[in-house]
C-alpha cells in the first residue's frame, strides 16, 4: 500500500543518518498519510528518536530526502517547519507560567496575532487537554501528568501539520499512562492532526496507532496496522516483539501450492497452509514456525477437538496463572519442549480448569502455523 509521496504529509526517501561509524538510520523509506496515527516501535538505540528529529529539523539526513507536504525540507531549520514536538521530558519553560508556555508558539509568528486572540486560543487549547483555568500556574506547581498536558497544548495550539511525540508517556506511572493513551487517541481523532509517536512499549504502540513502523538497528523492518503485524509478522523478530509466541525451528521439506511441509529440528513433521505466509519458501530453506498462545486449544479428550487437520500432541500442565478473563498455561511435551497457551475463560465452561501435572492434549489448526524467516 505505497502511497505516492504527493499525498502524504511526511515522506522519507532513501534516508540515511550516520554519526561517524554509527548508522542511526539506514535507507528509510516511509510515507505517512495525512491524519493518521503512526508509531515508531523498536528497542533502545534503534534510531527512533533520530528519525523523529529529522522530521522536526533538529537533525539533517546524511543522505536521501525528507519530504514535508510535498516539499523537500533537507536543511530547513526546525523553526521554519510546520511540525511541532512533544519532548520526552516535556521541556516546558520554567520561567514562564502555563499560559505563556502555551502561547509561546503563537507569539513567534509574524505578524504576531493580537493578544485577545492569543488569550482565547490559549484557553481553547487548555480546555482541549482538560486544563481549563490553569493559565496562571507555574510549571513546577503542576504534576507530571499535568505538565504532559501543558506540553501537548503548547504544541497543538500551533495547529501543526504533524505532531511528533517522543516517548511522551514514559515518565508517567502505569495507571496514568493508560489514561493518557486513551486521551491521546481521542485527542488525535478530535483535532485530525497527524500524530507520529515514538515508543519502545509495544502495548502502547499497538493500542493507539493506526499503523506501526517497526525499527531495528536503524532499519524499518515492517510497517502495518497492529492487526497485520500481529497476524502476519514478516519475521521471527517481529513475531517475538509483538506479543508472545511459541517458536520452533525447522527446515522446509516440500513446498506445494497449498501446503508447506516442514520438518522441525525436534523431529516432528508439520504441515502449514501456504496461503498464510508472507514469503515463498523453497525446499531446504531454514525456517521458524510460530504459533500464538491463544491459538492453542486445550482439552482433556481428543474427541472434543474440532478440526481433523489439526495437529494434536500430548502435554503435561507445568504451571497455571490465572489472569482474570484468561488463564495462562505453561505446558510441556517431550518432543517440543515448553508451550505457552492462553485459554479464554468462556472456553472452559464445559471443563473445570486444568490442574498442574495433569496430562492433557494441545492442538492447533493448520492456519495457526506461521512460517517465518529466521530474521
Amino acid at each position: 500500500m505505497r502511497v505516492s509521496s504527493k499525498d502524504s504529509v511526511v515522506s522519507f526517501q532513501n534516508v540515511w543518518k550516520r554519526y561517524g561509524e554509527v548508522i542511526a538510520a539506514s535507507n528509510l523509506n516511509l510515507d505517512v498519510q495525512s491524519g493518521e496515527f503512526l508509531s515508531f516501535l523498536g528497542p533502545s538505540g534503534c534510531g527512533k528518536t533520530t528519525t523523529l528529529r529529522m522530521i522536526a529539523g533538529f537533525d539533517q539526513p546524511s543522505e536521501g530526502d525528507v519530504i514535508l507536504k510535498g516539499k523537500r525540507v533537507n536543511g530547513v531549520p526546525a523553526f521554519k517547519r510546520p511540525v511541532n514536538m512533544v519532548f520526552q521530558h516535556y521541556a516546558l519553560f520554567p520561567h514562564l507560567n502555563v499560559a505563556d508556555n502555551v502561547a509561546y508558539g503563537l507569539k513567534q509568528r509574524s505578524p504576531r496575532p493580537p493578544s485577545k486572540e492569543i488569550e482565547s486560543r490559549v484557553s481553547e487549547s487548555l480546555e482541549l487537554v482538560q486544563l481549563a483555568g490553569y493559565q496562571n500556574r507555574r510549571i513546577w506547581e503542576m504534576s507530571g501528568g499535568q505538565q504532559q498536558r501543558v506540553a501537548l497544548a503548547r504544541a497543538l495550539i500551533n495547529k501543526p501539520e504533524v505532531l511528533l511525540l517522543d516517548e511522551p508517556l514514559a515518565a508517567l506511572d502505569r495507571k496514568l499512562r493508560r489514561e493518557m493513551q486513551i486521551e491521546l487517541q481521542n485527542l488525535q481523532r478530535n483535532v485530525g492532526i497527524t500524530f507520529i509517536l515514538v515508543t519502545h512499549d509495544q502495548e502502547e504502540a499497538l493500542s493507539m496507532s493506526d499503523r506501526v513502523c517497526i525499527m531495528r538497528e536503524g532499519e524499518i523492518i515492517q510497517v502495518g496496522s497492529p492487526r497485520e503485524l500481529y497476524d502476519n509478522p514478516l519475521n521471527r523478530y517481529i513475531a517475538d516483539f509483538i506479543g508472545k509466541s511459541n517458536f520452533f525451528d525447522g527446515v522446509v521439506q516440500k513446498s506445494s501450492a497449498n501446503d508447506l511441509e516442514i520438518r522441525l529440528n525436534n523431529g516432528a513433521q508439520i504441515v502449514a497452509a501456504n496461503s498464510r505466509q508472507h514469503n515463498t519458501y523453497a525446499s531446504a530453506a531454514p525456517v521458524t514456525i510460530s504459533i500464538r498462545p491463544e491459538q492453542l486449544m486445550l482439552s482433556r479428550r481428543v474427541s472434543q477437538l474440532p478440526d481433523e487437520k489439526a495437529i494434536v500432541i500430548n502435554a503435561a500442565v507445568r504451571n497455571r496463572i490465572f489472569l482474570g478473563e484468561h488463564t495462562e498455561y505453561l505446558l510441556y511435551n517431550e518432543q517440543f519442549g515448553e508451550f505457552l497457551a492462553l485459554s479464554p475463560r468462556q472456553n472452559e465452561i464445559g471443563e473445570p480448569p486444568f490442574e498442574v501435572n495433569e496430562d492433557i492434549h494441545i492442538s492447533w489448526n493448520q492456519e495457526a502455523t506461521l512460517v517465518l524467516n529466521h530474521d
Partner: protein
Amino acid sequence: MKSSLVHRLLLLPATMWLLVMLVLPLLVVIIFSFGDRGPAGGYVPGFSLDQYANLPARFTAFKNTMILAPAGTLAALLIAYPLAYYLAVKANPNIKTVLLVMIIVPFWTSILIRTYAWIYILGGQGIPKMLEFFGVEGVRLINTPYSVLIGIIYGYLPLMVFPIYVSLEKLDKRLLEASQDLGASPIRTFRNVTLPLSIPGIATGCMLVFILLMGEFLIPALLGGGKVFFIGNALVDLFLQSRNWAYGSAVATTLVIVMLLTVSIYMKLMMRGSNIREEVSLL
C-alpha cells in the same frame, strides 16, 4: 529540641567568627567616626558630626568609585557573557577544559604582580607604542580612568565568567530545541529562553564584582597613578598616611551605607525582574 541544640552548636563557630571579625570592628569604626583626630594622629573619643560634615573633601574618590565600579561591572558583564556562553554552549568538550583552566591559571599569580604587568603594557612602551607603529599618535592610557577600567576588567573577568558559565551550563538544552520547534529563530530563542534563564548567574556575577570593586584600591593605585582615586585609596591614605582615624572611619561608614543601599535596591530589582525558582523541576 535536640536537633535544634545541635544546629545551634554547629552554627556557633560561624556566629562567633562573624561577631568578632565583622560586627565588632564595624561597631568600632562607627564609634570612631563620631570622634576626633588625636594631636599626633589616631583617635580621641568624642561625639560630633564634624567628620561627616567634612565628607565633601573626598568627593572625587566617591565619584570615581561610583562611576568606575558600575562601569567596570557592566564592562566585565558584556565581555564575560559571550565568553561564558561560548564555553557552556558552543565549545567542544575537549577545548572547553583547556579554556576553563586558562581562565583560572592567572589566579595562581598574585594580582599585584599581574597588575604591575599592566603598567608596562599600558605605559609608554606598551600599547601606545604599538599604536604609533600603526600611525596613531599621542594615545595616553596609563594613569587615566581608562587604564583603571582595563585593569578592573582584566582582574574581575573570571569572577563574572564563572557564575554565568554555571547558569548556562546547567540550562537544559532541550529547552532551546523546544523554543526553535515552536518557531523561534536562534536569536529569539536566546532572548526568550537563554537570557532569562541565565539571570541568576548574571545577578551573582554582577553582585560579586560590584561589591568587591567598591572596596578596590590596588588597581587604581597602580594604574591610576595617583590621579584616579577610589574610596579604598582614600581609606589607605587616611588610616596609614595621615593617621586621621576618625575621618577615615566616617568615610568607611559612608561607604558601607552606600554599598548596603545600592545592593538592596539591586536585589529588589533582580527579585522583581526574575521570579525564577532554582529548584524548578523540569521533569
